[in-house]
């Protein structure tokens, strides 16, 4: 009998899994359950939607005929509410019950909202789904000022969209610099300059202590008070502090959950036939050499693809993913990956090159012979070579300095390594 695969979550991880399954098994029944009402879309593009630069058709992650072509049944607008590991069933909020032989949880993350007074007022938004972007877009014409809480990737993306829509935007960041999770200090400084140049106010070392609402009119937000006493007026307040793994379904089912759902190198959970991937899991980070959540799109897809192949009976190993990001907001060209701020001891070595007048900054973090982290700002065209070496665990100490130079390339690599690249061989990706 054809295998029954059920996937919870219809985004990078869920689609990756379906494609992984189809690589191995053309016959099995695949059902994807999603509580969002759309086919898979590019979540990072919700800021383009808000800026009026893309609609759903532009945002589709796969061509419109993808599900039909791949023989995937897509159930949208309905949440999975209970998972029974013994009976091998998944119950949906609308009462339906699905039987599965192999199940994947790709439930992603939930935006973290602190308990700050007044964050339940009208005019307060989170920003992780297309519906969030739609709700926010509907308020734009009547709004003049916005405050964004959180200077991370999501906060900066929504700040850019709001600024493009001619709102006066202030970004409030608790730490001493924006993008502090994905950049080091010199790179944050460059990013902050670009953000300020676009007219966005950046307020660091502070946070929103309370939210003030209008007495009449449903109490919609009119301003926020920062913890330094300053009042910032705003019609819109976006909470973009971070995303936490969405593990409620897994926990209730009795799966092992730490910070995220615990998976092994096959993306299998501790229950037979049950896999998980993406923002809801903690998996191996090869650069930091620890198990932790690394909530980025490529890791969700690759983890999903790995899970899918294993669900279909193959033996695929997740190569590990690390924190990585690339940024084009506010005209920036910037990529980073891995360990950016190594502890002083522990045998790390840092190489860097700064040329502020050219907007150029490059940094490599080495652990022993291998690359553990990188940042390229400005000219980023060939940064992939360095990240490839990092993912392969190649011994780079002998030529690492060259990777900082202008015009570096495969020619900078030892002949053997270079030859394998020219032949299209690369040992760092295969799930």
């Amino acid at each position, binding site marked *: 009998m054809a295998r029954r695969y059920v996937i919870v979550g219809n985004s990078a991880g869920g689609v990756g899994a379906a494609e992984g399954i189809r690589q191995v098994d053309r016959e099995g029944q695949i059902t994807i359950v999603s509580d969002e009402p759309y086919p898979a879309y590019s979540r990072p593009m919700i800021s*383009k939607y808000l800026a009026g630069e893309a609609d759903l058709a532009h945002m589709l992650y796969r061509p419109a005929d993808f599900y039909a072509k791949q023989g995937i049944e897509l159930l949208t607008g309905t949440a999975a509410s209970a998972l029974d590991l013994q009976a091998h069933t998944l119950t949906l909020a609308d009462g339906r019950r699905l039987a599965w032989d192999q199940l994947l949880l790709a439930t992603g993350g939930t935006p973290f909202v602190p308990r700050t007074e007044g964050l339940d007022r009208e005019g307060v938004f989170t920003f992780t789904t297309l519906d969030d972007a739609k709700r926010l877009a509907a308020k734009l014409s009547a709004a003049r000022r916005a405050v964004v809480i959180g200077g991370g990737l999501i906060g900066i993306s929504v700040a850019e969209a709001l600024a493009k829509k001619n709102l006066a935007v202030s970004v409030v960041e608790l730490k001493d610099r924006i993008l502090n999770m994905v950049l080091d200090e010199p790179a944050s400084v460059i990013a902050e300059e670009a953000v300020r140049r676009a007219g966005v106010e950046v307020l660091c070392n502070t946070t929103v202590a309370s939210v003030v609402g209008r007495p009449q009119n449903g109490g919609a937000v009119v301003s926020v008070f920062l913890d330094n006493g300053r009042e910032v007026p705003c019609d819109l307040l976006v909470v973009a502090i971070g995303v936490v793994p969405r593990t409620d379904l897994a926990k209730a089912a009795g799966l092992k959950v730490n910070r995220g759902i615990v998976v092994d190198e096959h993306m299998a959970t501790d229950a037979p036939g049950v896999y998980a991937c993406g923002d809801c899991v903690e998996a191996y980070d090869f650069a930091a050499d620890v198990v932790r959540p690394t909530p980025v799109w490529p890791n969700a897809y690759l983890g999903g693809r790995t899970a899918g192949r294993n669900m279909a009976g193959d033996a695929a190993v997740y190569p590990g993913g690390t924190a990585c990001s690339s940024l084009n907001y506010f005209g920036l060209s910037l990529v980073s990956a891995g360990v950016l701020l190594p502890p002083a001891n522990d045998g790390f070595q840092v190489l860097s090159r700064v040329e502020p007048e050219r907007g150029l900054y490059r940094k490599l973090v080495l652990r022993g012979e291998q690359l553990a982290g990188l940042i390229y700002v400005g000219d980023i*065209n060939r940064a992939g070579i360095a990240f490839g070496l990092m993912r392969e665990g190649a011994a780079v100490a002998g030529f690492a300095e060259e990777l900082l130079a202008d015009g570096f390339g495969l*020619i900078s690599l030892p002949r053997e390594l270079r030859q394998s690249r020219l032949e299209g061989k*690369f040992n760092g990706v295969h799930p």
Partner: protein
Amino acid sequence: MKRIVAREEYCIGCRLCEVHCVVQHSRTKNIIKAFKKERVRPTARIHVEESGPESFSLQCRHCDEPSCVYACLTGAMHKDELTGAVVHDPERCIGCWTCLLFCPNGAIAKDAAHGKVVAKCDLCGGQGTPACVENCPNEALVLEEVP
């Protein structure tokens, strides 16, 4: 599928492959017009690397397990089912540079001509001999059928 093989020992570093790649991706496909008349000059999808007497020319390897396709945030980067070529749809590209970070060969570039998207080898559409191979004077680039 077809793959372009770079033969380092034959490459003389003349960069004609870069020139003809630009022409092929230009509006007029005419060498003089592409370089002298057209308002925007396309970004070359091939790159000659040189160090002393050593040189070779490199474009996308159209990998079987393409990191760039797996990493793409929008689905713009995909593997053509028919030709096996890794191709990129500029209409769906948002220039997030994720593929650029994930290409182990540095074979994807920011598209200087169009700013917010990337440019990469498209095997000249998958039909016939790509311009770089066609115009290499020393057979340092050859088209081979690979399984």
